[in-house]
């Protein structure tokens, strides 16, 4: 291991080496900051890099450790956060012009937990504006590029986090997932991404897109790293009424458990459409083989309402977003358009100039779906279908412990390839969206490369609060399928 470059260490290795004083937090942080300096101009995974603050934090960690105190399990280890998590005194943009100058006076729960674990914050990761997008191209701060092929998108909306982790510009990060925003970029960038059960991680201070679907989760290079990180950010928080007060199990311990006897369900609807690329299908089949070779059983299951998931999602998420984003009116914080002569003009110009195209599109869809006379036909009906989708999964989990599906229908596409056609873009989340509607947890784990060398991920889904099963199955896949872990990107 001695010849593995510092930045390629796993999160847990880095944490152990700092703890055992093999390396100081300053050296570790400095190494990653210089990697960011050399690579991020190409990748653009960060909206904000915090070199001085990170080095100061690292120095403080080293000093404390010299006196014998350790902040937590991530003492002195540099990580990044999607720019959707509020960070006290550090600009938090959510990828939007309307929050381009916003410095929150508070930390998100996730921010607080990561810092309490001892992590050093390197910066804030790029994202689709207000997490609305599947390619990180809707960011007001410009797109992020896929470290495996700079002409391609990293996925989204947590594309900055996935790219930063894949390019080893941080040891791990935390993203958010409303319809696949952690799992899809993890799949496209060849890293591990977890969307926990709704209510597992507090949403406090995480800027809302669609409140009933949003959930924070880890993005890391190994299943073990992701499992450990989820353990540190999960748990009850009384500031979020939807956060569930249930104990956080030892996720890391689950990674090594055997899969013998595990019932792996294959939802037939996920393999039927012609949108699924042959290469992705083949890679997911390899993941299945990895599981069955270790003693897992295969069962076919059906999720009959799958075909309604996308349209259900595109009513519920925009409806909630139209209300959540109404607060950005230029009155109290964030961007305010200049030159307006009256209140209405100030508000409408602020929003017209502050928001990007995709955000405006969804605000309009959502406003329409909630409007008088349309509520029952759209939002009301979508909620009913959501109940049916949830029931589909409940039935499937009677027969299976875990479901195995592709994460995304294709490997990473090219920049600009789908920006002109929102519907095609929305289809890239077709396998990830039902999980959010049902509130169940999901993980994307790398399972192969395409012919042109692009990463492909397999998605595993389990029942509510059964993240351990995901880590067990993903760990088994990771053990069998060798993986480069860090994107082959020249420094």
């Amino acid at each position, binding site marked *: 291991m001695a010849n593995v470059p510092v930045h390629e260490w796993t999160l847990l290795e880095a944490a152990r080496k700092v703890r055992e004083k093999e390396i100081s937090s300053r050296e570790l942080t400095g190494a990653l900051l210089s990697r960011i300096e050399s690579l991020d101009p190409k990748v653009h995974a960060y909206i904000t890099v915090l070199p001085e603050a990170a080095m100061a934090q690292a120095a403080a960690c080293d000093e404390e450790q010299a006196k014998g105190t350790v902040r937590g399990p991530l003492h002195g280890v540099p990580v990044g956060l999607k720019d*959707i*998590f*509020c960070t006290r005194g550090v600009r*938090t943009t*959510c990828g939007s012009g309307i*929050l381009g100058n*916003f410095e*929150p*006076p*508070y930390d*998100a729960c996730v921010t607080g937990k990561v810092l309490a674990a001892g992590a050093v914050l390197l910066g804030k990761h790029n994202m689709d504006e207000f997490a609305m997008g599947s390619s990180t191209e809707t960011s007001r701060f410009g797109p992020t590029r896929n470290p495996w092929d700079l002409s391609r998108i990293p996925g989204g909306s947590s594309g900055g986090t996935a790219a930063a982790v894949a390019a080893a510009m941080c040891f791990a990060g935390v993203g958010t997932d409303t319809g696949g925003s952690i799992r899809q970029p993890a799949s496209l960038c060849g890293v591990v991404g977890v969307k926990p059960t709704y209510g597992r991680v507090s*949403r*406090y*201070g*995480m*800027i*809302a897109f*669609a*409140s*009933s679907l949003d959930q924070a989760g880890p993005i890391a290079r190994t299943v073990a790293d992701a499992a450990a990180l989820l353990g540190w950010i999960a748990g009850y928080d*009384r*500031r*979020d*009424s*939807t956060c569930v007060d249930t104990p956080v199990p030892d996720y890391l311990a689950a990674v090594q458990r055997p899969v013998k006897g595990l019932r792996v369900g294959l939802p037939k609807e996920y393999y039927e459409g012609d949108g699924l690329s042959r290469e992705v299908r083949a890679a997911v089949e390899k993941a299945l083989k990895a599981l069955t070779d270790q003693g897992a059983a295969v069962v076919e299951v059906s999720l009959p309402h799958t075909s309604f998931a996308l349209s259900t999602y595109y009513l519920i998420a925009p*409806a*909630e977003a*139209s*209300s959540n984003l*109404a*607060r950005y*009116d230029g*009155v*109290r*914080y964030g961007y305010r358009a200049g030159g307006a002569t009256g*209140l209405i003009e100030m*508000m409408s110009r602020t929003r017209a100039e502050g928001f990007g195209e995709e955000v405006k599109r969804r605000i309009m869809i959502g*406003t329409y779906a*909630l*409007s*008088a006379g349309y*509520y029952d036909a759209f*939002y009301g009906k979508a909620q009913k279908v959501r109940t049916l989708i949830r029931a589909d999964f409940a039935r499937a989990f009677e027969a299976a412990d875990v479901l195995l599906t592709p994460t995304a229908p294709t490997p990473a596409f090219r920049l600009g390839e789908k920006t002109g056609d929102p519907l095609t873009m929305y289809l890239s989340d077709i396998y990830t969206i039902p999980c959010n509607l049902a509130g169940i947890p999901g993980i994307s784990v790398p399972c192969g490369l395409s012919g042109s060398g692009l990463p492909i991920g397999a998605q595993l889904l389990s029942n509510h609060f059964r993240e351990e099963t995901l880590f067990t199955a993903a760990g088994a896949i990771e053990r069998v399928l060798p993986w480069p872990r860090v994107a082959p990107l020249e420094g």
Partner: protein
Amino acid sequence: MAFEAVIGLEVHAQLSTRSKIFCACSAAFGASPNENTCPVCTGMPGVLPVLNRRAVEYTIRTAIATSSTVQRRSVFARKNYFYPDLPKAYQISQYELPIALGGHIDIETGNGPKRIGITRIHMEEDAGKLVHEGEFAGAQASLADLNRCSVPLMEIVSEPDMRTPEEGGAYLRRLHDILVYLGVCDGNMEEGSFRCDANVSVRPAGQESFGTKAELKNMNSFRNVEKALEYEIRRQIERIEDGGKVVQETRLWDANAGVTVAMRRKEEAHDYRYFPDPDLLPLIVDESWVEELRKTIPELPAEKIARLERQYGIPRYDAGILAADRALADFFEASAAIYGGNPKTTANECVHWKDAVFSGALSPETIAHAVEDRERGTISATASKKLVELVLSTGKPFRTLRDEQGLTQVSDASALDVIVEKILAASPKEVESYRGGKVGLLSFFVGQVMRESRGKANPKVVQEVLKRKLG
């Protein structure tokens, strides 16, 4: 043609919890602008509401006190609209599924008691307020004070069961008294803790269906509500009699001009795009919680009036005045417990000194002693009033002052005999005239005796002694 008015009232009562409904900020009135704010009530990105348990308890207690049915499951919804005093651009309110339904309260009317239905009770948050810099017309800027944002409110909607402005006033006063009795609202109308909007329409007497209604706002006292209703009913009747039609609209009461003025038409109303707030779980209220809170409900005004009437034998009217304020009724009962006597006298005294009762300057002992000494004839009515005033200004006990001031009066007939004999002996002519039939001279003798006793004689006893001696 005879017309009948149909009135329904919507009351917004501020719950007197210490903190706001969805955050820990103080809900107190009168702080400097934006002092009582935090990221949650100012709608910063990513923050979330957490429901105040106390606010729910207060609302449940109100539901119990108004015989409403507490719903096991109620849901908070978002009411979406843009305004600078509404930081999230939506108000969290209960909409389709409120916390309580179907109650009533009983009021007193000129024609006896009447039951007014309560449609629903729901919880919501208040908005902030805008202050316009400089004069309104030429204002250069508007300033937002968000202290009131997320202050807990309870909206109580009545059935359209009232037919006269007096009934409207009686309903409001009774509801107000109930909330204050419960301690869930301070009832202060000037500070906006208890606000009322009215829906009013008229119809030909005997007609079943309702006429077109107008919604009245901006009435900040009971009297103003009654006046506004009187005006509006008259306006609508006149309009119909002139061959016109009543338009559905919101009208503001202008207390100075004594008129209602159209504000905005219902057709132009916002589409609030209500939907369940995904940040808050449905509110589940167990029956056991309701039963626990039921035990905390104090005696309410209607029950108290009936009991005071029954227990103390005082007129219903007096009981009503006492019971309009729990503190006054309690004071009365405390006084009556110290000295029974004639409770009507005690009630009169309590009402007469009620300002001092409310300020806490007067103790029940003072009133009890004042009534007792008067009834026993130890002091005169004039002396009693003077002594209570002295208690208020010096803080000394009533009876200490009575003795210090020498204001006890002589009621002992044998002691007065001597004085009366002396006066009669000194006025033989008048005695003769009196006995000759000029009974009006009695007051002359009383005056003489009073002067001789330097005001200390009990005039009632003096009269009795005189009548006996002259008889």
